[in-house]
């Protein structure tokens, strides 16, 4: 599957395991809002990879890339009330 996707689309920013929403990061990193923010420029578009438990840039690539689900898949997951993300993103 990944072979059909161009390299630029196989970066972490497009991966199911990668999460870089500012609000998500502020919840995942306790204390971040005390002296900083998830919405600042210095953070750029970095996020958390739940597959490797790393904090890294959105333009990284790796062999475990999993394409983000389509809008239909996402809606289906949300309708279930749970998702891989909701369960895994714990601190």
């Amino acid at each position, binding site marked *: 599957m990944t072979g059909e996707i161009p390299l630029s689309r196989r970066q972490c920013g497009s991966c199911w395991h990668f999460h870089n929403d500012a609000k998500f990061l502020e919840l995942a990193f306790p*204390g971040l809002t005390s002296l900083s923010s998830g919405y600042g420029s210095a953070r750029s578009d970095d996020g958390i990879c739940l597959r490797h438990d790393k904090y890294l840039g959105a333009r990284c690539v790796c062999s475990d890339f999993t394409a983000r689900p389509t809008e239909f898949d996402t809606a289906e997951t949300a309708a279930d009330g749970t998702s891989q993300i909701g369960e895994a993103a*714990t601190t």
Partner: protein
Amino acid sequence: MTSVEVQPDRLIAAPPRWRELWLKEDWWAIWLGLGIVVLAYAFFAAGASIRWIAVTPEKWSTLPQLGAHFAANYSRYIVQFLAWLAVFSLALKALGHNAREFIPSFLFLYVLSLVIFALGQWDKANTYNLEPPLVALAVGLVFSNLIGIPRWLDAGFRVEFYIKTGIVLLGATLPFTLIVWAGPAAILQASIVSIVTFLVIYWVATRLGLDKRFAATLGAGGAVCGVSAAIAIAGAVGAKKQDAPIAITTVIIWAVAMIFVLPFVAQYLQLPAGVGGAWIGTSEFADAAGLAAAQTYGNLAGHGAVAGTSDQAIFAYTLIKVVGRDVWIGIWAFVLAIVATTQWERVETGRRPEAAEIWWRFPKFVIGFLLASLLITLVSSGYSLADYNKAVVPSLVAPIKDLRTWAFIFCFLSIGLTTRFRELASAGKKPFLAFSAGAIVNLIVGFILSAIVLAPHWENLGH
């Protein structure tokens, strides 16, 4: 273990690029800060002033005096509150926050800020060391750690947004010529201290057996700009997910302690205001924490407890911290990303560091700070000193300064209100030791440079 509940379709934020202009709070701080400055100038050019809305509590010695002030000016405070609420709501809504949660939260913040501001204007306040930045921080810490406040109220406690907006406004009160004159020394001093501090933390951390990426994350937190630098470097080098929260905890503990300690140590040493501000600029880690300490020291100068002026402490601090340290975060990230990918681990993230990262991580609010300074300096250049003091200061500069003070009080109070010590990640002995070693070296080197090597420069800042 805290479960993080976020809607799946919000977890992947779109790539920033030019969308940064409305998706990053740095840019919103520029729009708000510069918007206020331009509006103030438009009123000034039309022969009016924004002074009416930039109301602040006056000096008082008895409660009836204070009551009379509020009775005479309550409409100004209401309008000011609504104006702040409108502009902050607009910005935070664009950033994706919930406006309905923000409104009651900001009302709470504004009322508490007003009380603290008024307390700071009591003529006996300095007798009891009731400096507004310290009182705001202490009150906030009591609320968040002892009394307890609902989590949803955090919507209005945007420390970083308020400090960035305040720093853009601060630019309007700092002559651009002073930035040009004192900037090189600030960059030199800050660079020396930053590099030494980073190397000490990194060296001690790796000797204690910590991972190189974690050591770099901790090092940047102590050397550049605190929590923001720590997470920027954590992302640049691909640190483990749990490294960033530990670095955040370590920075917060040191930064909050130093807010209360540094101004009084500097006072004990009788450092002139500019020298004390420069020392705080090299020794504090986060912008917000450092500004709380610098403003406290500036207030001490304003009361005559130390030599110099209040502005000297703030200006020296800002030059060192913002111009000397913050603006280099992108370069730190770029260089460390190269080291991480070429030396530490060649293949794991498959990432090639890009020079463009220097720009993407650049703290953009600094652009607003410089533009505000340039604008007011150009406006002022056509006036003699006497006319400047008589016309420009009261009608244009002073109201901007008053609004800046408000933004800073919102920030200082928010630091306390969002710092819940029991919720922070455990710092761990080794990371704390490594960071502390760097912080102590930082304090010593910063003191030598500020109070001995460059003392005449900082003592005479702005004269």
